[in-house]
């Protein structure tokens, strides 16, 4: 019996969740002569239905540049961003269809790429948050593959974009700090495995299309050791990223 009761409560919660979720979709009115609905979220999928002017449609969710919509009589299909942007809210205000983020003022970046660190192959993944138009904070995770050792690097830094309005090619300067973990591959073991490091960087970034961008970075590191001299490796890398 307790099991049955708990099942009832679970179903109850689920039923109410569904009921509430159904009421929270955006409703838009078609103002152009018609709006096309396709069978899939892509330019090649066939148009199977059109919503007439003045009719209301419900926007269920989006995938890339396509929006899943429901027609007044229940038919569901996909419509393109530009076409949906030409509808209005029931109040007559323009439809709140999100456009592409502006490259110069975007907030978030996520990217990955290839590079060379200390003459070793390097795999990079990074996340970047725009503090202002020209100043970003970034977190970079990297793995370098050497013949004698593998290195894992985690760095946080600040990056200054000199002229954020330049879209295709805009130089950047950076500074930051982090940690390096060294894992020996062949004997003898590395003298130190955990080291703090600092870097300065020179690079560039540029807009490709829609939400895509590229980044190039050259970094000069100082790895702080307990030996007589610090290590001073160099690195370059090329990343592809998406911005939000």
């Amino acid at each position: 019996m307790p099991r049955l009761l708990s099942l009832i409560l679970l179903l109850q919660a689920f039923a109410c969740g569904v009921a509430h979720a159904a009421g929270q979709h955006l409703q838009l009115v078609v103002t152009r002569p018609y709006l096309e609905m396709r069978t899939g979220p892509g330019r090649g999928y066939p148009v199977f239905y059109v919503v007439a002017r003045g009719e209301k449609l419900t926007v269920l969710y989006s995938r890339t540049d396509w929006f899943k919509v429901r027609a007044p009589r229940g038919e569901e299909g996909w419509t393109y961003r530009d076409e949906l942007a030409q509808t209005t809210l029931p109040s007559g205000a323009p439809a709140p269809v999100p456009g592409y983020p502006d490259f110069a003022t975007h907030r978030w970046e996520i990217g990955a790429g290839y590079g060379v660190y200390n003459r070793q192959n390097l795999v990079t993944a990074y996340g970047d948050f725009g503090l202002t138009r020209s100043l970003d904070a970034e977190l970079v995770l990297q793995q370098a593959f050497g013949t004698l050792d593998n290195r894992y690097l985690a760095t946080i830094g600040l990056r200054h974009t000199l002229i954020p309005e330049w879209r295709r090619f805009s130089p950047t300067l950076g500074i930051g700090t982090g940690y390096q973990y060294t894992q020996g591959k062949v004997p003898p073991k590395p003298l130190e495995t955990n080291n703090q490091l600092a870097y300065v960087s020179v690079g560039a970034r540029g807009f490709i299309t829609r939400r895509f961008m590229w980044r190039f970075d050259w970094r000069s590191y100082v790895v702080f050791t307990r030996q007589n001299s610090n290590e001073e490796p160099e690195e370059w890398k090329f990343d592809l990223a998406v911005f939000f």
Partner: protein
Amino acid sequence: MEIRLGGVLLAAVALSGCAWFHRGDHRPTPLGAGDGAGASTADQTIIEPQVTRRVVKTPKIKASDFELGAYFGALSIQDFGTNPVYGARLAYHVTEDVFMEGYLARSRAGTTSLQDVFPNITVLSNSGKQFTYYDLDLGYNILPGEVFLGRGRAFNTALYTTVGMGDVKFAGTDRFALNFGVGTRILITDWVAMHMDVRDHVFETDLTGRTKNVHNIEATLGVTVFY
């Protein structure tokens, strides 16, 4: 009896329960509505209508550009036989054509052909047999389309290629590896997809005595969920 009682309880609570969440929805009747007598008494104090501006919240459109799932299949580790592989994948669809993807998977090497002839030779330690990899890939949907099941059912599909790089940990050491793949995504619903992939992980190794590039081809079947 208990089942019948349970059924009644289930129906009663499920039907009634939603009303509880709407308990605040009763709007009070406006003051003076339908009160014709009140209007005629002009000397009464005029009641200032207290109208608060209704804040209309426009619902946001939920994006479902991420794809998360698991896969299982066979990985042919060069010189070490074909073995089961299982892994997880996370993808972000940037446009209808391009996506970025990350994989994490594991397999375990078998024995070399040499060990079939000389069973007493040890090539890999027990922990060295672990084959673990991660990849960061860029994917492109080359052939999007539909497949048909009978007369009344169509599923959206895409044939895609991926290229990327990552780490293969095998025989106790990490190696830089490139990977190239071809796959098919069949969307069972708009939320659930089935994947069939063939991918080659290429890296340089000297495990068998001379340095060479090895090709480790895997064929996998996976399920993903868009969210």
